[in-house]
C-alpha cells in the first residue's frame, strides 16, 4: 500500500507541477470555463426572460452550475491529454518501468486531475461571484456541490486515463473529449429540463448528467434535489471508469 501511495503522490505532484509551471497547459484549462461562463451567463442571459423560467438565484448561477461541473469533467479530460502526451514522448514507459505499483500511476494522474481542477474551480467561482452570482445554499450545500465536482472530475479523469492508455497517442484527444462533451451538452444546459422540447428533452431525461446538473443547481439555490441519486450515479460511474482505466493500464503494460 505504501508503494502505491508513493507512486500516486509522485505522479500527482508531477501533474500539478507541470500545470503550474507551463502556461500552455494551465491557461486553456482556466480560460475555457471562464469563457463558457461569460458566453453562457452573459450572452444568453435573456433566456431567463422566457415564460416559466423560474430559477430563483438567476441565470448566472444557473450557468455557473453547468460550467462548474463542466470544468471538473474537463479537468479530467485535460489530464487524459497529458497521459497520451506522456506515451508519445516515452515518459509513460519510464513510469511503467519505475513504478513498483503501477495502479498507483492511475491514482496519481487522477489526483493530479483533481489538483488541476481545484485551481480552475477557485478561479471560476471567484469570477462568477464577482459577476454578481447569487448563492442561496448554505455551507452544507456548498460542500455537496464541491463533492459533486470532485466525483465528476474523478470519473472523467479515469475515463480519460483509460482511453489514453489504450491508444497511447496524442491523437486520442478527440476520442477522450468527444463523449464527455456530448454527455455534458445533452443535459439541460441552457434551460431547465421541463422547458426542453423534442429529441433533446428525451435524451436529457435519460442522461445521468442531467441529475447531477439539477442537483448542483438545487444546491446553489438552497433547495437540494436529486443529490443522493447524483452521488450514487457518480460513484457508479467512478467504479466503472476505474475498471476501464485499469484495463487501459493492463493494455499499456502488455504493449510494453
Amino acid at each position: 500500500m505504501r508503494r502505491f501511495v508513493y507512486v500516486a503522490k509522485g505522479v500527482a505532484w508531477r501533474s500539478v507541477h507541470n500545470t503550474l509551471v507551463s502556461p500552455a497547459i494551465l491557461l486553456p484549462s482556466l480560460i475555457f470555463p471562464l469563457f463558457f461562463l461569460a458566453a453562457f451567463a452573459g450572452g444568453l442571459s435573456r433566456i431567463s426572460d422566457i415564460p416559466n423560467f423560474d430559477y430563483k438565484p438567476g441565470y448566472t448561477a444557473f450557468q455557473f452550475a453547468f460550467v462548474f461541473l463542466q470544468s471538473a469533467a474537463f479537468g479530467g479530460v485535460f489530464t487524459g491529454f497529458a497521459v497520451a502526451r506522456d506515451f508519445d514522448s516515452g515518459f509513460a514507459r519510464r513510469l511503467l518501468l519505475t513504478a513498483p505499483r503501477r495502479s498507483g500511476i492511475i491514482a496519481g494522474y487522477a489526483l493530479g486531475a483533481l489538483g488541476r481542477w481545484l485551481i480552475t474551480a477557485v478561479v471560476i467561482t471567484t469570477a462568477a461571484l464577482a459577476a454578481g452570482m447569487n448563492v442561496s445554499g448554505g455551507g452544507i450545500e456548498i460542500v455537496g456541490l464541491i463533492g459533486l465536482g470532485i466525483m465528476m472530475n474523478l470519473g472523467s479523469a479515469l475515463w480519460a486515463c483509460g482511453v489514453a492508455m489504450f491508444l497511447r497517442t496524442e491523437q486520442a484527444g478527440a476520442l477522450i473529449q468527444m463523449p464527455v462533451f456530448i454527455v455534458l451538452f445533452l443535459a439541460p444546459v441552457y434551460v431547465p429540463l421541463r422547458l426542453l422540447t423534442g429529441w433533446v428533452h428525451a435524451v436529457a431525461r435519460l442522461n445521468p448528467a442531467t441529475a447531477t446538473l439539477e442537483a448542483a443547481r438545487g444546491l446553489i439555490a438552497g433547495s437540494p434535489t436529486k443529490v443522493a441519486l447524483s452521488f450514487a450515479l457518480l460513484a457508479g460511474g467512478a467504479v466503472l471508469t476505474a475498471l476501464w482505466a485499469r484495463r487501459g493500464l493492463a493494455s499499456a503494460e502488455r504493449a510494453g
Partner: protein
Amino acid sequence: MSASPSAVALAPPHLFEQVGAVARRSVMRTVRQRGLLVFPLLFPLILFAINGSALGAATKIRGFPPVSYRDFALAVPFIQGALFVAVSTGTDLARDIESGFFDRLALTPLRGSALLAGQLGGSVVVACVQSVVYLAVGVASGVGIASGFGGALVLLVLSILIAFGFAGLGALLALRFGTGEAVQGFFPLLFVTVFLSSSSLPRNLIQISWFHEVATYNPVSYLIEGIRSLIITGWDAQALALGFGFALLLCVLTLGFAGTAMKNRLVRT
C-alpha cells in the same frame, strides 16, 4: 546502389506549376489522413444538433427573428469549421518547419508565395468539403435557405472565403512561431471569438452590456450574420456587404502578414 549518373538540364520552374505541386501534396496529405477530418467535421455538427434543439426556447424571447432556432444556428458551424481549417493549416505548416521539410523546400527554387498559395490551396479544398457537408446537413434537418439556391451558392462562396482567411491566420501563426504546439495553443482563443459574438443570440437581444459591446466590435459577428442573413432573411445587402467585407479584410490582413512571415522564415541568402 549503382547506376549511371544523369545530367539534368533545368529551366526556371513556373510559378503555377510550383503552386500546383505544393497544393497537390497538401490535398494528398488530407485525403490520406481522412480520420483527422472527422473531428473538425463532426464537432460543429454535434454542437449544431444539440444547440439547435436545446436553445429552441430562445425563440420565445421577444424580438427573436421569426424562424426556428435551428435556422438561426446553422451559420455557426461554417465559422467553427473555418477555425478548424486554420488550425489544421497551421499545424501542417508547423510540422514541415519542425521536421526540416521546409528547409528541403527552401533549397529548391520554390518561391515563398508559391509555397503559401499551395498550402492554402489544399486548405480551400477541405473548406469546400466542410461547407457543402454543413449546408447539406442543415437542409436535411429542415432548415430552409431564405435566399434560395442562388443564396446557397453565395453562402458557400462566403464560407470558403472566411475559411481561406482563417487558413491564412493559421499559416501566419505557424510561420511566426514555427511550432504546432503554438498554433494549437491559439485555438482556444479563436474559439472564444465565436462565443463572444452574435453566434447564440441576435446582438440586439444580448442583455449584458459588456458582452453586447464585445459582440458588436467582434468581426466574427458580421461573418456569422452575413451567412445567417442568407439562411433566415433572404438577400440582405447590408449584412452581405459587412460579411464579405470583413471576410476580404481577414484574407488581406492574414495573407499579407503571412507573406511577410514567409519571407522572414525563408531566410535564404
